C-alpha cells in the first residue's frame, strides 16, 4: 500500500481537495482524508477513472482508454467520467481547479 504524495487531477477544471490522499489496493482504490480516515472505496470502473484523471487533463486522453477498460461505448464512457467528477465534487473530494488558494 502506498499513499501518493502529490496526487491531483489537473485541468478537467478540478483538483484534489486539501488533505486527500489515496491508496491503491487489490481491485480497489481507497480515498482518504487526513484525520477523517476513509471516504471512498472505489471498485471498477470508477477506480480506473480515479487513476486516469490523476494523470490526464483532456477528456480525449481518458475516454478511449476508459471505454476499453470499462467495456463501454464512448457515450456511456463520457457519462461515467462526468458522473464520477460530479459526485466527487459534490462530496468535496475534488474542488474546482484553482480554488485551493
Amino acid at each position, binding site marked *: *500500500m*502506498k499513499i*501518493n504524495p502529490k496526487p491531483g487531477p489537473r485541468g478537467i477544471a478540478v483538483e484534489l481537495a486539501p488533505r486527500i490522499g489515496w491508496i*491503491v489496493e*487489490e*481491485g*480497489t482504490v481507497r480515498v482518504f482524508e487526513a484525520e477523517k480516515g476513509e471516504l471512498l472505496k472505489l*471498485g*471498477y*470502473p470508477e*477506480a*480506473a477513472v480515479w*487513476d*486516469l484523471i490523476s*494523470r490526464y487533463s483532456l477528456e480525449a486522453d481518458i475516454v*478511449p*482508454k476508459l471505454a*476499453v*477498460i*470499462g467495456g463501454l461505448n464512448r457515450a456511456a464512457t463520457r457519462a461515467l467520467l462526468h458522473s464520477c467528477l460530479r459526485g466527487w465534487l459534490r462530496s468535496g473530494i475534488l474542488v474546482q481547479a484553482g480554488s485551493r488558494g
Partner: protein
Amino acid sequence: MTFSFAIPVLGEWLLSAPFSRSAALVNDSARRRAAFAGPPPDFHLRAPKELDPLFLGIIPTRDCNMACAYCGFRSARASATHMDYALAEAAVRWLAGHCRRRNKETLNVHFFGGEPLCAFDVVEVAVHSARRLAAENGLVPHFEVCTNGFLTDEQTRFVGDYFHTVILSFDGRPEFQNRNRRLKGRGRSFDTVARTARALAEGPAQLCLRACVTQDSVARMAEMSAWFSREFRPLAVSWEVLKPTAASRKAGLLPPDPYDFARGFVASRRILEQEGIRAVYAADLLPEPRYTFCPMGQDALVVTPEGRVNACYLPEEEWLKSGLDLTIGRLTPGSGLTLLAGARQRVFRHVRTKPFCEACFCRWSCAGGCHVQHTASGRDVRDSDFCIQTRIITACSLLHKLDEESLVDELLADRAALENLACQPSYLVSQSE
C-alpha cells in the same frame, strides 16, 4: 549411495543428486563406489495435454527510448507499432477466463518490450482491464514489468502503485550505465534511471536490478553490489553477461572472461546475502531441479503488438536465425486465442532436446540456458563461456550448501582447478575420471 554427477574439486569429488536435492564432498574411492541415478521417469518429458500458462506476457511495443550499446532487440530498427487497446484487453480477458475455468487464484501478467512503458497508454489499459477482470472473477492480479527505468515521474508512480515486481535494467555506476545504456541521441541515462530505482525502492513493488557485466565492469561486481545494496535496497540483483552483438563490438564492449565473472558473482553473492538481498545468476542452482531455463516450455504465452502469440519474448528474427519457429498461436479481440496445431508440442520438444547437456552436472539446473541464443538445435555449446561460468557458479553453490566456504575460496583462487572443474567431457557419475 546414488548420485547423478561427479565434479572434480581440488583433488576431491563433489557429488550431486539434483532429484534428491543432495550433494556430498568425497574422496576418489567413495566416488568410484557411487551408483548412478537419473531423473525420475515422469520429469516433464512431454507437453501437458491442456494449456497451463505460467503467465501471460504482453509486449505493448518493440519500440524503445534507449539505444543500448549491446541491445539484442535492435531497438533502433524496432517497429514502433503499439498494441491496440482492444487487443491488450482481449489478452487479459482470455487469461481471466482461463484462470477461472482452471480454478487458478492469480492473474499473472508480465510486460516486456522494447521498453514496454514507451506504450504507457497500452500498459494503463492492460493493467486496469486486468484489475477489473480479476475483481469480477475472484482472482488476485499480479503484474511484473521489465523496464529500462527511463521513465517520467508519473510513469514511475504508476508502476510503483500498480506493479508487484519490477525488473529494472541498470548497469550500475555512471561510467557503465552511461556508456552501455545510452539514450537515443546518445544522451546519458544514469541520473533518471537512478532516480527511478530510488523511487521504486521506497514503494511496495519488489525491485530487482538487472545488470549486464562486460570485460570492463567484471572486476567491479563486488564493489557495485555494495553500492546497489546501499543506494537502492533491491530485493535482488541479477547479473547477466554481455551477449556480443555487432553493435556491442562496434562500441568496444566485450564479454567478461567467464572465470572472472564466476569469481565476481560469488563475491557479489556474499556481499548481497549479508544484506538480505538475493544475488541472481539465471543459470545457477535452484532449490528444485528444472527442465527449462526460462518460461519457454512452461506454456508462457507472449502476445506481440500485432497479436501473434509466442512461446518466447525475444524478437522473431532471433529465433529465425537459430532455425526456430516459436509462434504458437494468434490472439484477436473478436476470436480470442487460437493455438496452432502441434506448436506447443514443438516447443516442448525443443526445450527437452539438449544432446550436448546430457553429461553436464548443470543439466537440471541451468537446463541448457537460453533455448534460442545458447542451445538452439544442433549447436555444440560444450565448454562455451556460458557453460564454464555456469559450472563454476553451480559448483560453488553446491559447496555453499555444504558450508564449504573455505574450499570455494581456494577453488576460485586456482585457475587450473577451475579449468579442470569446468571442462570435463562428462560429469556423469558412471563416466567421470
